C-alpha cells in the first residue's frame, strides 16, 4: 500500500523492542521474591540484548539503508542468587540462608524509566512523521 510515513520501519521496530524490554522488566519485578520457580531454583533475572539490523525496505522513502533495532535474545543474568539470612523461611537451607533472586528492584525501576523514555521518543518520531506527511499533502493547496 501507500508509503506515506517516512522511516516508519525503524520506529515500529524500536517501539516493539522497547515494549519487549518493559515486559521483561515487569516480569523481573514481579518475581523479585520468588525463591522457588518451576525448576525448583530461585528466579533468575532476565535481561534483553538489543542489536542493530540494517533496513532497506519500504518505510525508507529515500531508499537509503538505515539501521533499525531488534531484540537479539532474552538471556538470564549470570549473577548468582543473593543469599539472605532468614532461618524461618520455608526455603531456608541447613545454615538458615535463603537464596533470593538476583533482582535489584531499584535497578529495575531505573531501567523501566529509561525504556519508557526511549519508547516515548520513538512515539514523538512517528508523530512528527505524520505531521510532515500532512504538510506535504497541502503543498499548493489554496486555503
Amino acid at each position: 500500500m501507500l508509503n506515506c510515513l517516512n522511516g516508519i520501519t525503524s520506529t515500529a521496530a524500536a517501539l516493539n523492542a522497547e515494549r519487549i524490554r518493559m515486559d521483561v522488566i515487569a516480569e523481573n519485578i514481579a518475581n523479585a521474591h520468588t525463591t522457588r520457580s518451576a525448576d525448583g531454583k530461585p528466579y533468575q533475572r532476565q535481561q534483553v540484548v538489543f542489536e542493530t539490523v540494517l533496513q532497506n525496505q519500504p518505510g525508507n522513502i529515500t531508499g537509503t539503508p538505515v539501521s533499525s533495532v531488534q531484540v537479539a535474545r532474552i538471556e538470564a543474568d549470570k549473577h548468582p542468587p543473593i543469599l539472605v539470612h532468614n532461618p524461618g523461611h520455608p526455603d531456608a537451607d541447613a545454615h538458615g540462608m535463603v537464596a533470593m533472586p538476583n533482582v535489584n528492584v531499584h535497578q529495575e525501576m531505573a531501567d523501566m524509566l529509561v525504556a519508557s523514555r526511549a519508547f516515548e521518543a520513538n512515539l514523538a518520531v512517528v508523530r512528527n512523521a505524520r505531521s510532515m506527511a500532512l504538510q506535504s499533502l497541502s503543498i499548493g493547496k489554496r486555503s
Partner: protein
Amino acid sequence: MNTLSAIRPVLQNLPQIQFTPKTGNATPVNDFMPVGETFDTTLRKFVGEVNTKQLAAQDVTKQLLGGQNVPLHQAMIAVEEASVSFQLMVEVRNKLMDSYQELMRMQI
C-alpha cells in the same frame, strides 16, 4: 563623363548583391522564438512540454499508488507543477480564442 566612369564599377557589381530572404516569416526578438520557427511550431512545442509534465505527474502517482519508495512531497510537487502548466495552457487558449473572436467581429 567622369561621374559615369566612377559609377561603372558599382554598376558592374550590382548583380552580385543578392537578396537573401529569411526562412519562414518570423524575426527573432528574443529566445522565446528562435529563427526558423513559426507560431505554429512554438505552440506545438508548448503543448508538448505541458504534456510531458502531465505524463511525469501520472508516472509518479502510479509509483506512489503502487507502494514504491517515492517521497510524498515529490509526488505532490510534480502534480502541482503539472496542474499549473495545464492552467497556463488553458489561459493561453482562452486568450487566443478571445482575440480570434474579436478579429471576426471587426467591421471591414
